[in-house]
């Protein structure tokens, strides 16, 4: 089982907090980018590591995938079906910016096979949208959601951000309720993170922004979670909530340590090696550099790393423990040919003793209250070499 990630690296405007690979270009040569994606997809299909495996999910991420002509989406989905053995139902997600949608595009995506839409709402407050430098308005959010429903999307995610500078928690929860009122199938709620090498980070370095301290951000975190759970959204990962059975399978596969191909500028991929380790790669970020490599019939990889089996084992735990369900110890043992406790027992011990880490039905997971410490545990696991 594996996933396919397709990166659409173009935006109409680069928001100051964004650290994704996105580029603002006056003229986007869509046919050329499409051709490159198709060529790259074909390259990967000839690689043995993805043969004899089923393609389960496709995810169009960005940048702003909703800028892409539906024909491009159609061509990529068709090519994926043509080159790979596909599961009976393939989850095909696409990220949409509320400021860039119209009926034709959404209809086109739907017809191309997209069956899950992720709308980048971020906020229900005009002021906040402005601060975030988003190009859309609150009206456009409602309009985009309505169009999506109208053209038949029955699996929609809303992306939201909280703990913005000076944001009042009640104010945020009110906005979250507005999101819930739309009855989306899925909500991703992220705490604002000042990522390095962003404009926001530079601003913050010059003059620290009034962002939430630890206590406040914990308050945001728990209240967000509680409100969503009350409304029957399952918290299945740190920042992801869904109606039962409607998790984002593509994203969940990252945390379940499954393989994925990434195509497009700046896309990442990962596959398991025969020795138990994994290989990770990243494509060239610049669309032009990416396309030139592909046109020359070369791979567009700019960075690749191989992790040995032990590192892969720690990495898989770090990712899986972000999930509320944690990790299956049976899976772990089969995957890494070693018992999880045999490898990391001494790291787990204090966490188990304090009840932060739990084991039940052959699964290892963090207690609800300890989820916010997952990276602390992860750094101990990643560091451990005993």
């Amino acid at each position: 089982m594996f996933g396919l990630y397709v990166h659409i690296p173009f935006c109409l405007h680069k928001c100051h907090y964004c650290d994704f690979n996105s580029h603002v270009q006056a003229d986007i040569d869509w046919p050329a980018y499409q051709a490159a994606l198709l060529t790259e997809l074909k390259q990967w299909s000839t690689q043995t590591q993805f043969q004899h495996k089923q393609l389960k999910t496709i995810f169009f991420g960005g940048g702003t995938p909703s800028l892409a002509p539906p024909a491009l989406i159609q061509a990529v989905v068709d090519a994926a079906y043509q080159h790979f053995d596909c599961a009976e139902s393939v989850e095909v997600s696409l990220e949409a910016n509320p400021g860039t949608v119209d009926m034709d595009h959404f209809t086109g995506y739907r017809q191309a096979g997209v069956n899950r839409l992720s709308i980048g709402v971020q906020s229900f407050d005009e002021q906040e949208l402005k601060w975030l430098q988003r190009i859309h308005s609150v009206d456009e959010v409602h309009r985009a959601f309505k169009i999506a429903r109208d053209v038949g999307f029955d699996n929609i995610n809303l992306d939201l951000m909280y703990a913005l500078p000076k944001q009042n928690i009640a104010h945020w929860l009110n906005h979250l309720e507005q999101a819930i009122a739309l009855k989306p199938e899925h909500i991703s709620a992220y705490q604002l993170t000042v990522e390095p090498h962003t404009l926001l980070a530079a601003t913050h370095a010059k003059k620290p922004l009034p962002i939430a301290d630890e206590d406040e951000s914990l308050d945001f975190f728990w209240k967000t979670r509680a409100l969503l759970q009350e409304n029957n959204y399952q918290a299945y990962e740190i920042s992801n909530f869904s109606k039962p059975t409607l998790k984002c399978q593509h994203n969940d596969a990252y945390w379940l340590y499954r393989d994925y191909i990434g195509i497009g500028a700046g896309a990442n991929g990962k596959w398991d090696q025969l020795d138990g380790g994994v290989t990770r790669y990243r494509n060239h970020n610049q669309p032009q550099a990416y396309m030139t490599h592909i046109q020359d019939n070369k791979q567009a990889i700019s960075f690749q790393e191989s992790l040995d089996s032990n590192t892969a084992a720690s990495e898989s735990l770090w990712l899986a423990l972000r999930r509320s369900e944690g990790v299956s110890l049976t899976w772990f043992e089969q995957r890494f040919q070693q018992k999880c406790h045999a490898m990391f027992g001494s790291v787990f011990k204090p966490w188990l003793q304090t009840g932060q880490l739990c084991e039940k039905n052959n699964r290892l997971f963090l207690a609800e209250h300890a989820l916010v410490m997952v990276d602390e545990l992860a750094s101990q696991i990643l560091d451990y070499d005993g």
Partner: protein
Amino acid sequence: MTQRLTRNFSIIAHIDHGKSTLADRLIEETNALSQREMKKQVLDSMDLEQERGITIKAQTACLSYPAQDGEVYQLNLIDTPGHVDFTYEVARSLQACEGALLIVDATQGVEAQTLANVYIAMENDLEIIPVINKIDLPSADVEEAKRQIEEVIGLDASEALCCSAKTGEGIADILEAVVARVPAPLGDREKPLQALIVDSWFDTYVGAVALVRVVQGEIHKSMKLRMMSIGVAYDVNDLGVFLPKPMPRQKLSVGDVGFVICGVKRLSDLKVGDTLTSDRHPVEEALPGFREPKAMVFSGMYPVDSAEYGELRDSLEKLRLNDPSFTFEPENSTALGLGFRCGFLGMLHMEIIQERLEREYQLNLISTAPSVVYKIHYKDERVTEVSNPSDFPDVIEIAHIEEPRVLANIFTPNEFVGAMMKLCQDRRGDQLDMKFVSENRVMLTYDLPLSELVIDFYDKLKSLSRGYASMDYEVSSFKESDVIKLDILVHAEPVDALSMIVHRSCAETRGRELVSRLRKLIPRHQFDVPLQAAIGGRILARETVKAVRKNVIAKCYGGDISRKRKLLEKQKKGKKRMKSIGSVDVPQEAFMAVLTLGED
């Protein structure tokens, strides 16, 4: 070369007043070195000295100078170390001379150090020739410099020379003045040998080398020399003079300054200030002024990586070969593991050794707060000297404690007098004198505890005066003092490497400052880490490093994994470089926190 045509002289100057540049010019003028070989500031041979502009070990140059009177003179320029920690070495260098050039910067005037060294020269009855340097600078004020020489030092400046070591102006006059005004060395060549060890150092190929001044008699090759302080004798293997390149000679006669190599393996056998005499015809009395080097400032040095302990020991041994004035002995700290307690002549000496260990031997070190020697008088009338806070006895056993005091002269522009006085007061100083050196400069004389000087006093003095104040000090006496041991507890465990001896009156302030600083330096753990400052069992101050309650990345998808994994690995690596005290990771900086006080 006859005694009549020999002149031995030194240069006395404050740091940066141009001593080394002037030495360069004198050597150049007498063509001892060709231009090509002329490195800037040839006398400062160690890298470190060139960078800091400080001469650490005295070196010398024997210059052949055809004077205007038609005779060729042998001018022995004896370099002196230029820092307060090396007063003893300066004194021995000056003892080897009949004259000294007193350099005063025409833009700066007389400074504290100049004064201290001039007094040493006066005590040795040297002919002092005032030289006003840097006259090429637009801000030069020759008349004011002369006035200060007369008023502050009390020397006749009417015949002061003017020069610019940078441009070379006035250099020829200086050489003529040395010939004309510095007396030829006295002493009888026929009498039994008496030679002063001015300096000594270790050479990898020939062993220990002594720079000597022959006071009477002669040193020949193949003679047997006796070091009077230890009574041991060695055969002379080689001798000669520095031009400044070493030049072998058959003998060193009365008045000469040169080197002697005699197969001494341990540099500690060639003590600066010791007297060499003939083993066969020894003199009765040694030359005056000799004393054993005495460490006044102490600090623990620990390798950050305990695997480097052996290397640290080897490096200390190697350094000691060249500098017997510092001492070290193994020390075991519960917090820092195995290391060494090192003793230094003073603060600069300590910094130099630490820097050389890190630079030349590539060691990563943690140094504990410097401390001084205390004389502990017990109730049972025993007296011991303790320099390590860990060795402090129980309060109940102590009758009283004496601490070393210094006599410090501080020169400062008027506008900073208030700040200087406050600094000295804060550091428990007693003002002894205050003198106007010029219209806008003041000399303050204070009696201060040495322990207050070793913790960033000099840095403070410089920063409070924007670099304009200068200081010189000399350890003067031991005085009774109400000092106590301040303990620092991290997570309820006393950390020996953080404890220090302080005066009771400052204990609370220091304790509070220290824990508040530690709170910012010790990373957060998964539990609260209390930090306490205590005397005996009494807690003076407390802070808490709050537990981490949230450590989670909001977003982690396929494209984030490599980068975020590296971030997590880095977090952990940072902790690995720290020292574990119980279950608490303490970074190196925490141990340095005690070195700078009162900044926030």
